[in-house]
């Protein structure tokens, strides 16, 4: 069993959550004026690190909160206290 620390509900079973990908920088507001390669890297680029990375998780079968949290891709352990939710 793998528990995901939801900032609102506390630790809940992972089957309640959906992984929503790497946490990326905010979407560029002026996408039309970007160079093609910069925009394409924003759309499909992946850091895919071997180690701790910040990701988006969605408590879709729970409170519905979308939050970001750090996780180690080598062990799947979440970094305690790293969850951040939009206010």
């Amino acid at each position, binding site marked *: 069993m793998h528990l995901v620390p939801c900032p609102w509900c506390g630790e809940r079973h992972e089957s309640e959550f959906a992984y929503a990908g790497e946490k990326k920088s905010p979407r560029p507001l002026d996408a039309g004026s970007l160079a093609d390669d910069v925009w394409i890297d924003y759309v*499909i680029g*992946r850091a895919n690190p*071997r180690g701790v990375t910040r990701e988006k998780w969605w408590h879709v079968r729970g409170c519905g909160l979308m939050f970001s949290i750090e996780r180690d*891709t080598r062990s799947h352990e979440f970094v305690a206290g790293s969850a951040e939710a939009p206010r």
Partner: protein
Amino acid sequence: MQRYSIFSLLRNALSYHEGWERAWRAPELKPAYDVVIIGAGGHGLACAYYLARDHGITNVAVLERGWLGGGNTGRNTTTIRSNYLRDESIKFFDASVQLYEELSRELNINIMFSQRSQVDVIQTWPKLRDLRRRSMASELQGADYRLISTEEVYRRIPILADLQRSRLPVIGGAVQERAGVARHDAIAWGYARQADAAGVEIHQNTEVTGIARSPRGEVTGVETNRGAVRAGKVAIVVAGNTTQVAAMAELRLPIQSYNLQAFVSEPIKPVVHVQVNCPDAGMYVSQSDKGELLAGGAIDQASSFRQTPRYSVLEDAVTALIEMFPIFRRVKLMRQWGGTIEFAYDASPIISKTPVPGLYVSCGWWGGFKAIPIGGRTLAYTVARDEPHPLNAPYSLQRFDRLNFLMEPGTVTNR
């Protein structure tokens, strides 16, 4: 090179099998090669073999961090099939099945390719529509993938549970007759042995720690834990860890790694004679020649380099297995393991030259075992001629420059 045959087996039996020569050499690492291949898995070794056979390039080193064939080549469920969706993919993977059919003779090693067919068990109408579309695409390309009736599914898999009164009854099936399984070690060893005989050097326990480049950006060689090696061409064939190795040349790829697990049961008498794929239940199973049930399920939901199973995912796959085959409910599991698969953004592989001159990459494999012969052959063509073979041209890295995706939705692994 010693040929393997019934006669060599008998001759060596007389000397208690102590006279077999080494299958490949363990030479000293030279300071320079024409081509360096990073990764001695199936694809890397096949690439080395076809570089020598098709292009006469034999001054080649295959560098492997661990042991030969010990990565995903030794961790997959050895399914070989070509029932893909896109025209380009069906052509590519069907060419691979055809190469597999000749591979035992070609490599002089018994790869135990058993074309026992794959049967897809369909339990939902959307999946039936999806596989009907697939079967039509296959028919256009001459691959033998077709729909079958529910009665035919039960005729081919007599021990399948009677699900007709359950929530998800079997509503049909699909079959590819030429699909099969093969012995993964034999494929790695066969390619290694033939490549070695042609002059290629295989260096195990040789970890690449850096990729050397000239001031103009061209690849000039690699750094390893055994010293620097010069090479004009370097191929990265390390699916699972491509992001990390490509970063050594400041190359960023649209790749994400995931953990996929599989497990085998204790050996039992032959009960399943085909490979069974249950996309709606989320499980696939085949029975090995030793009698073990070899099964797997979905990937871990978040990206991962874990390479070990996780109980929650294993439980889902076992639950699906028992639901489809209640007679397995008291069978014990012997081993379970995980491997790192890769998805490119559009889920099609990448076999391509890169923006870094002299650097080539074969990655994005989430079912790469079935593609070893054709993947190695087209990568060798790309490395030798610096341009893609017609079969891997659709899998170039340049497709992402214009977001020309080759979307390839999968079966269980990538659903």
